[in-house]
């Protein structure tokens, strides 16, 4: 066959295989619209959020220093947060979880925690996205792993599932805890 015929065929088949691979990856749950965080390995932004009414223990950036912890973005309006909530209740013994109640009415956030259970050590209230934007948040839930020096080491988008916990979050937490 003449090269003039083969070259377009090869290019075409190449394109088809690229599209096929992307389709398969999408079918297996890859989400190309998720943004990589530029904050990884950078210190947590400086902030001081007020407490939820009647709960006490508000959250400031200073509280994130000293030990490895999770920072979980949630809201009483957030359906996917309900999905991960029972699992957060299970892992709260293993690592301190701090919450940021994002774009919520303070009373509703507090009531939600009373109703669903409260897995958090400290909770800050962020009604106008100030701290959420500093964290590069695009939606809820999102969970950050912060190391003992107060550096953001990982960002998980979407509910924390047992699979994500066992395969990614917990191994990283254990590694960060090692001196």
């Amino acid at each position, binding site marked *: 066959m003449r090269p*003039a015929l083969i*070259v377009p065929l090869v290019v075409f088949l190449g394109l088809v295989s690229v599209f096929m691979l992307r389709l398969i990856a999408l079918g297996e749950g890859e989400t190309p*619209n998720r*943004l*990589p*965080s*530029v*904050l990884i390995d950078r210190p947590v932004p400086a902030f001081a959020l007020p407490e939820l009414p009647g709960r006490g223990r508000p959250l400031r950036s200073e509280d994130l220093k000293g030990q490895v912890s999770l920072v979980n973005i949630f809201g009483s309006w957030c359906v996917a947060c309900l999905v991960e909530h029972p699992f957060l209740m299970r892992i709260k013994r293993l690592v301190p979880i701090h919450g940021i109640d994002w*774009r919520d009415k303070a009373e509703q956030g507090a009531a939600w925690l009373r109703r669903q259970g409260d897995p958090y050590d400290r909770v800050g209230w962020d009604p*106008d*996205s*100030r701290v*959420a*934007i*500093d*964290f*590069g*948040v*695009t*939606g809820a839930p999102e969970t950050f792993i912060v190391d003992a020096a107060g550096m953001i080491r990982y960002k998980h988008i979407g509910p924390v599932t047992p699979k994500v916990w066992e395969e990614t979050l917990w191994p990283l937490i254990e590694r960060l805890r090692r001196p």
Partner: protein
Amino acid sequence: MTAHERNLKTNRGGGRALPHTPTIRDSLRAVIGVVSFLAVSFPLLAVEPAEILVDPALEARARDVSQRLRCVVCQNQSIDDSNAELAHDMRVLVRERIVAGDADEDVVRFMVDRYGDFVTLMPPFKPATWALWFGPVVFVLLALSVARGLFRRRGMAPATAPLSEEEKRRLRVLMGEGDGRA
């Protein structure tokens, strides 16, 4: 007299159309009506009145910066276009920083520091994005050179070879010019 009244008049005066039978003129009138309605309606603004700055110059800058920033929730809209709550909060933040004296570029950098280059709708020009900027041009040039090669080869195709003696003989037979002997 409005165009509408004039149309009514001509219809009545002409009396060509049967009562209640839509004429071409009626349909035209309906089309003109719809088009003029669309022409005077405005696209809905995502920017809420409470957000708008009093100083029109600062507000214009805020609108311009907002149009360059991507809504990270809807991803194909600017925060200026988007009704997402996070876009609202980002617009408020943009205005606050502009009022506080930030240059437009400082505001954009503030967002890029938090969300990465993706937050700008126009990708920045740097090595990682060269493929994005030059890719289309490279592909067009590639296509042109391939096309040129194909056409040139076609142009240079050898002229048809002359008929051999055997072919000439068969031709003569087919044309009924004897038994084929020259």
